[in-house]
């Protein structure tokens, strides 16, 4: 029984590594920043989840901590990528020439800038 769990866990570890390898290849091949971060976000999330699952199967005692890790990864990974991509867009990181349409450009306005009081 323990051996079987270990084998399944190992399989998940390998799968997670392969997913992350694909992310690395994607990072290399994609033409611009926005496409790259797409690949990186999805693959690193799934890859990390697979690795965490594999570790949980090999080390059943760590399972509760890994549950917290799961939720944390699912929340923080997309949010942080969203922030990075948004910051990149507003600092005008160029898009690839293939880009068909940019709806955000049309609606960008002063609404994105906000004046705040600095008095303590």
């Amino acid at each position: 029984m323990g051996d079987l769990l270990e084998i399944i866990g190992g399989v998940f570890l390998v799968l997670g590594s392969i997913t992350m390898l694909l992310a690395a290849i994607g990072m290399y091949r994609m033409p611009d920043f926005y496409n790259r971060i797409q690949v990186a976000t999805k693959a690193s999330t799934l890859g990390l989840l697979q690795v965490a699952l594999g570790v949980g199967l090999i080390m059943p005692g760590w399972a509760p901590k890994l549950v917290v890790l799961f939720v944390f990864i699912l929340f923080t990974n997309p949010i942080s990528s969203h922030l990075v991509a948004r910051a990149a867009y507003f600092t005008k990181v160029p898009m690839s020439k293939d880009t068909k349409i940019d709806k955000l450009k049309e609606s960008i306005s002063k609404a994105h800038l906000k004046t705040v009081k600095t008095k303590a």
Partner: protein
Amino acid sequence: MKNNALMFLTLMSVWVLLNASLDPTLLAIGAGVSLLISFAFCSKCDVISGINLSPKAIAYSFMFVFVFIGELIKANISISKRVLAPSLPINPGIVQVKTKLKSKVGRMVLANAITLTPGTFTLDIKGEDLFIHWVDVKSTDVDGATKEIVSTFEKYLEVMYG
């Protein structure tokens, strides 16, 4: 007060999961720390209370999790296909979609789900407009894109955070 209590319960469950033990000393320490944090950092947070706890909503939450994991795996398969294909078949663009969700948490979960599903990435959110970077643009108008991207999750989230 309700927010603080909910935050306290959340933190307490995280604490128990982290420690993986029900040792009374640890539980007491955790209760103290959680109480302190829930009052220090959560004076006006209304996030957790936005969750609907009716049985239907809970059932929909489970369905949502399964749909979401399915989409995440699909996303990775599709992105791997794109990455490994020699011609690199991409057709990127930024489209605008609209969501019907009113609650902030619902919108956050929707944005995260969109980020993790095939070929789409939430680039900006302004009220009910979401701007999405799409690797393979299928329709450029708002309604078509909304139908393609948002509707998969929206029907679950509408019940969950209704």
